[in-house]
């Protein structure tokens, strides 16, 4: 121990007088403001324990004087959000589909809402931009199985196609091969005939007259005399350039042999009416809407 009043020559500060191996300790007390802040944090912590839920008990925890819980505050936040959005969505729910298309603000709201909901619910089958895939219709083009007006699109979204809903779109394509209605060579013939309807090349030497006859006897009931399809039954137009399952001969043979019955689920009950309306407007505005 040396004299406490010794001054360190480099720093100009007093030392504590402690010395270890020739190293002396400077007397540098904590600043008073720091010490005060430290005590204040202790006081604050005690207050916090009392006011907020803090201590775990055996089966629960102290609830705190304020009765605060994160779950309750989340409920409040969600209610607020609902209140903020509810107003706009109520406007949307009240407006007719045609009105929405005419009002730029409503159209923008419906498209924005529809786009998000589409991403959450429809994108798994139809793709994030509605581009579709084999068996899942492209919603950007102008070919519609069940109709492309706003009302028709909304109808399809609400009830689905071949879904479990009572009002769903009915109808499916028969399995002409599997059920023994047509023989394999007849299927090849009519497949080539169908290809010819939309101007696709056909197998050389196939019997056009026979194809036409098979088509008239088996297919016109659904696809129509002119093969332009029937949206009541979801029967596609066979004369255009758009093919849901593919237009090559092998795919057509498979389609005719086994039939097709793509299913779209009904969204009524799962999504609220305003949301379904917004989605219909969004799908309509993708570019294919009539």
């Amino acid at each position: 121990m040396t004299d406490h009043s010794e001054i360190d020559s480099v720093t100009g500060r007093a030392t504590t007088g402690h010395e270890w191996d020739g190293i002396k300790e400077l007397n540098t007390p904590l600043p008073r403001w720091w010490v005060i802040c430290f005590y204040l944090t202790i006081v604050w912590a005690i207050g916090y324990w009392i006011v907020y839920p803090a201590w775990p008990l055996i089966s629960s925890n102290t609830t705190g004087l304020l009765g605060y819980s994160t779950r309750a505050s989340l409920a409040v936040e969600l209610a607020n959000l609902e209140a903020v959005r509810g107003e706009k969505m109520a406007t949307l729910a009240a407006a007719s589909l045609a009105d929405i298309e005419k009002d730029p603000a409503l159209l923008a709201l419906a498209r924005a809402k529809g786009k998000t909901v589409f991403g959450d619910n429809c994108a798994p089958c139809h793709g994030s931009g509605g581009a579709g895939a084999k068996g899942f219709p492209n919603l950007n083009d102008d070919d519609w199985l069940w109709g492309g007006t706003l009302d028709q699109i909304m109808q399809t979204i609400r009830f689905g196609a071949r879904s479990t809903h009572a009002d769903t779109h009915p109808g499916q394509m028969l399995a002409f091969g599997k059920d023994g209605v047509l023989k394999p060579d007849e299927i090849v013939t009519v497949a080539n005939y169908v290809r010819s309807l939309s101007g696709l090349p056909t197998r050389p030497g196939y019997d056009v007259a026979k194809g036409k006859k098979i088509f008239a006897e088996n297919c016109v009931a659904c696809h129509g005399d002119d093969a332009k399809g029937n949206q009541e039954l979801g029967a596609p137009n066979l004369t255009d350039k758009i093919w849901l399952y593919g237009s090559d001969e092998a795919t057509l043979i498979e389609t005719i042999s086994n039939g097709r019955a793509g299913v779209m689920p009904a969204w009524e009950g799962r999504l609220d009416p305003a949301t379904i309306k917004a989605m219909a407007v969004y799908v309509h505005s993708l570019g294919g809407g009539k």
Partner: protein
Amino acid sequence: MNKTVNPNELTSDDDNGPLYVAQKKVYPQSISGTFRRIKWGLMAFCLGVYYFLPFVRWNRGLDAPSQAVLIDLPNSRFYFFFIELWPQEIYYFTGLLIVAAVALFLMNSIGGRIWCGYLCPQTVWTDLFYAVERFVEGDRRERMRRDKSGGSLTFKRVSEIALKHSIWLMIAWWTGGAWVLYFNDAPTLVKELLTFQAPMIAYIWIGILTATTYVLAGFMREQVCTYMCPWPRIQAALTDEWALNVTYRYDRGEKRTSVKKAAELRALGQQVGDCVDCYQCVAVCPTGIDIRNGPQLECIQCGLCIDACDNVMTKIGRPKRLIGYDNDVNIQRRRDGKAPVYRIVRARTVAYSAIITAVGGIMLYVLATRSLLDVNVLHDRNPVAVRLSDGSIRNAYTVRLLNKSGYDRVIAIDADGPANATIHVVGADSVTPDRPMIVIPRDSTSELRLLVTAPAENNPEKSIPVRFHVTDIGLGEMASATDNFVSP
């Protein structure tokens, strides 16, 4: 105290002392003179601009803010007199920052730390706070004596302290208040603030700026310049031997001696200095340094020591500017008995001026020719192209139209792309043959879905460029954007 100072041995620190010293409280004395007057003038100008600019009005028409300078964060707009900037025009601020930085360099290469001494907010507000302190508590000697003796807390003393801090807090509060006025309509906000109707964020910002002003100008003062601000370090890299700095003319000042003794020695024809060691230059210094120790980091070059020294020189009948603005070259030249030289036109001042002129010119040109109508196009990615039932190909685009003007516009949209292509805008207000039209409200953007369809016989084999033109059918102002038209 009479020691001869050799400039080559000048240091701001006494090397024999401790490396660490406790902060010494600075009591700058009041002073009058040329540089003090310049400082008062610049302080009045700077504070005047800061405090009153939000109240300047500018007529922009109905529904538009009528405040000359307004940063409208909720609507993402910046208004500066006749200029209205959108967020995507942030590069104007980049330009402004470049000009400001180079202007600072130029200032520095000509006159040293003019910014520090006269214009820096820290200097201006500290100067104001010092003025208040002197007004309430008396000048240097009085305050030093009181602080040294401890002083008893008489009623007079307590009321002085209370008055000083009240005035400081009022200034600080007004500083914070003026700040928030730049972000909202000033008269409205003042009314709301007074009736406690203003948004919480306004009170929070006023609180923050009141606190910083009060603490920085009232308590930290020169320590901000010495320890917190990077500029003293940076300016050392910017200055050169031709830059004017506040300088003690040691060749004239040394050897220091008393007036009387100097007169006697002069009468004998001996060489003596003009400096009488009166310490007035130290007394008035807001950073508490002795300029006679040569250029130093703490010196903000406010020139108050020049005033102090000039006053003394006048009194003792010696020429003024024993301390004055001078450059490093002349220190050496005077020592060698040569006439001083001053050079403002130098490589670096020319270069800085050129940069300022170039950047400023580009900004003015861009500002003068800036379009109030703009269009951005984004191609749909999924799907990139759609084949329609008749075999034609359609591409979809998201088009964003910007109407930066103060009136609603009717915009016609055309596309130059594949031959015989038709364009369709979802939700178009009207369609003339092949030309959708849309109304865009003033000062807003509209996002549209635009479909371009190329007939089957013109199907392009690969991606071809397509150019979208948007035309204000009233004024004919046009903007365009390019994208591609692709096949599936």
